C-alpha cells in the first residue's frame, strides 16, 4: 500500500520508564478503516503504546509518524471520573473536545453548538445535556466522553479500556456503537483491552503486546497461532466453544 494511504506509522519504537523498558522495537502501520484491538496482560505496554502514538511520552528510539495531519481522538482510561462531584455539565464536557481547534476567545458559535448537539443525539444523551457528568450512569458517562472525542471529527479514535467500568449489557451496546462508527462513519479505531474475547466480533485486527509486538493479524489467526498466549488460559471456555462450532 502507498504511504499516503496510511494514517499512522509506528517506526520501530522503544519506550523506557527509568530503567524499565515498557516497549521494545514496536513496528506497525494503521490504515484507514482499521478496527484494531490492542491486547496484552497488565504491564505489557498497552497504555504506553497508546500514549506513544499520541506523543504524550518521550520515545527513546524510533518514531511515530502521523500522515497528512491525521487527527486523533483519545478516550483515556478512567477519564475524568476521579471526582464524581466535579461541576461540569455533559454539554460542557462534550464542547471541550473543540477546545484545541478554536481561535481565541474560544466562544462557541452556532455551528459548534449544532455539531455538539448532533453528537449528543448520535450517542443518545441529548436529554442529559444539562446534567452534571458525575451524576450519569457509567454507560452514559462513557458515551459522553466518546462524544467529546468525536466532536473534533477525528480520523482515528484511540480508546483505553473503555468498557472496563460497564456492565455486560452496556458493554455490548458500547461495542455496537463503536462498530457502527467504524462501518458507517469510516472511523478508524484502536481499542486497548485486556479481554480479547470481548472484541471477537468487532475488531478486524489484533495486536498482541508483551513489550514486544508478538502478533499482528486477524482474530481467527490469533486463535490459531497463539494457543499458548495467556488469553487462552484465562478464557478456556470461550475458546473451547469456538473450537466446537468451527
Amino acid at each position: 500500500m502507498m504511504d499516503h494511504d496510511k494514517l499512522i506509522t509506528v517506526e520501530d519504537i522503544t519506550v523506557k520508564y527509568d530503567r524499565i523498558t515498557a516497549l521494545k522495537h514496536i513496528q506497525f502501520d494503521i490504515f484507514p478503516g482499521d478496527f484494531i484491538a490492542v491486547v496484552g496482560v497488565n504491564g505489557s505496554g498497552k497504555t504506553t503504546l497508546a500514549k506513544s502514538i499520541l506523543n504524550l511520552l518521550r520515545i527513546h528510539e524510533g518514531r511515530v509518524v502521523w500522515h497528512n495531519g491525521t487527527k486523533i481522538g483519545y478516550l483515556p482510561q478512567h477519564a475524568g471520573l476521579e471526582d464524581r462531584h466535579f461541576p461540569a455539565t455533559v454539554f460542557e464536557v462534550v464542547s471541550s473536545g473543540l477546545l484545541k481547534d478554536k481561535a481565541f476567545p474560544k466562544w462557541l458559535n452556532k455551528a459548534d453548538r449544532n455539531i455538539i448537539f448532533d453528537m449528543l443525539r448520535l450517542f443518545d444523551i441529548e436529554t442529559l445535556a444539562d446534567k452534571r457528568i458525575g451524576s450519569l450512569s457509567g454507560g452514559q458517562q462513557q458515551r459522553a466522553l466518546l462524544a467529546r472525542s468525536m466532536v473534533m471529527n477525528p480520523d482515528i479514535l484511540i480508546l483505553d479500556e473503555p468498557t472496563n467500568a460497564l456492565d455486560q449489557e452496556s458493554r455490548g451496546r458500547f461495542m455496537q456503537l463503536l462498530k457502527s462508527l467504524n462501518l458507517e462513519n469510516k472511523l478508524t479505531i484502536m481499542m486497548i483491552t485486556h479481554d480479547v474475547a470481548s472484541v471477537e466480533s468487532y475488531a478486524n485486527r489484533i495486536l498482541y503486546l508483551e513489550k514486544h509486538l508478538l502478533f499482528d493479524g486477524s482474530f481467527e489467526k490469533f486463535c490459531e497461532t497463539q494457543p499458548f498466549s495467556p488469553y487462552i488460559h484465562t478464557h478456556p471456555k470461550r475458546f473451547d466453544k469456538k473450537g466446537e462450532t468451527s
Partner: protein
Amino acid sequence: MLPFSYTLIVVLLGTVILGGIAGMIGTLVVFRSQALIGDALSHATLPGVVIAFMLMQARQLEVLLVGAFISAVIAMFLLDVIKHHTTIKFDASMALILSAFFGFGQVLLSHIHKDGSAAQAGLSRFIFGQAATLLRSDVYLLAGVALLLFVLLMLFFKELKLFIFDEPFFVSLGFSRRIMNALITFMVVMIITIGIRMVGVILMSALLIAPAVAARQFSNRFGINVFLAWLIGGIGGAVGTYMSAARANMPTGPVIVLVLGVIVLFSVLFSFNDGLIKHAFLNWRYRIQIQKYRALIHFYENPDKAPMAEDDYAYFINHDYLRHTNGDLNLTKKGLKKVRLIKGVVDNEY
C-alpha cells in the same frame, strides 16, 4: 454602627479584593484536590520574608513579598523533586515542607529578635497578619496583582477547566501539562504572597479554600462556582473586617477566616443542591412515603404475585392510583408515576 473612616475603607477595600480573588484561584486548587498545597506554600513563605529583610535591611512590603514569593517557589520545586525522585508520599512531603519551612522561619525570626532589631515586630505580623495597618499603597499593589490574576484566569479559563477535569485528555489535545501546572502554581503563589501581609501565613489557605468549598454547595457549573467563590470571598472579607473593626483588639485575619467558616457551615447545612438539611428532609419524606405507599410499591414490584388484602388497596383505588380494568387491578399513570418517584427510577438509564 461604626462610622466608615478612611482607614476602615482602605482596609475594607484590601480584604474584599483579596477575599474575592483568593476565592476564585482557590476554586482551581480545591478541584485539583490540592487544597493542602496552598497551606504548605503559605507556611513556606515565612523564611523568605525574614531572609529578604536580613539581606536587604529594608522594611518595604514589596521587598519582603519578593522574598516570600521566592521562598514559596523553592518549596514548590522541592515538593516536585520529592514527588518525582523519592518514594515519600505526597501528603507526607507537604507536611514535611510546611513544618520545615515554617520552623526555619521562626528560628530566623527569633534570631533577629536576639539581635534587638527593631523590625522584629513588623515581621512577626506575617504570621497572623495585620490588616488594620494596611496602607493605601498596599491596596494599590494588591489591586494590581488581583487584576493580573483575574485576567490570566479569564484568558485561560477553558483550558484550566479542562486541565483540572481531565488531564490526560487535555494533554492528548496537544496542550502542555507543564505550562498549565506552572500557571496554576504561579497564580497560587502570587495570591498567597499578597495575602500573608493581611491574614498571615497560618490562615492564608483558609481564604483559598473556604469560599470554594462553600460555592461548591450551590452550583453544578464550574464557571458559576468560580463566580460564587469570588462573591463569598469578598463578602467574608468585608464582614470580617467590619466586625473586627467594630470592637477593639479583634484581629482582622482570624475574624475573616471565622466568618468564612460560618459561611461554609451554613452552606453545607442548607445547600439546596446537596445540603445536609435537604438530605435529612428527603430521607424523612422517603420513610414517610414508603410507609404510606407500601402496598402500592408492593403491587408495582410483584404484579403477578398474590395481592395483599383488598383492604390495603382501597385507599389507592379511591385516589386513582390503582384501577380495575377488565377485572384486573392495574396501576394507573398516576400510580406508576408515584411509585417511580419514590423509588427514584429514572428513564433512559443504562
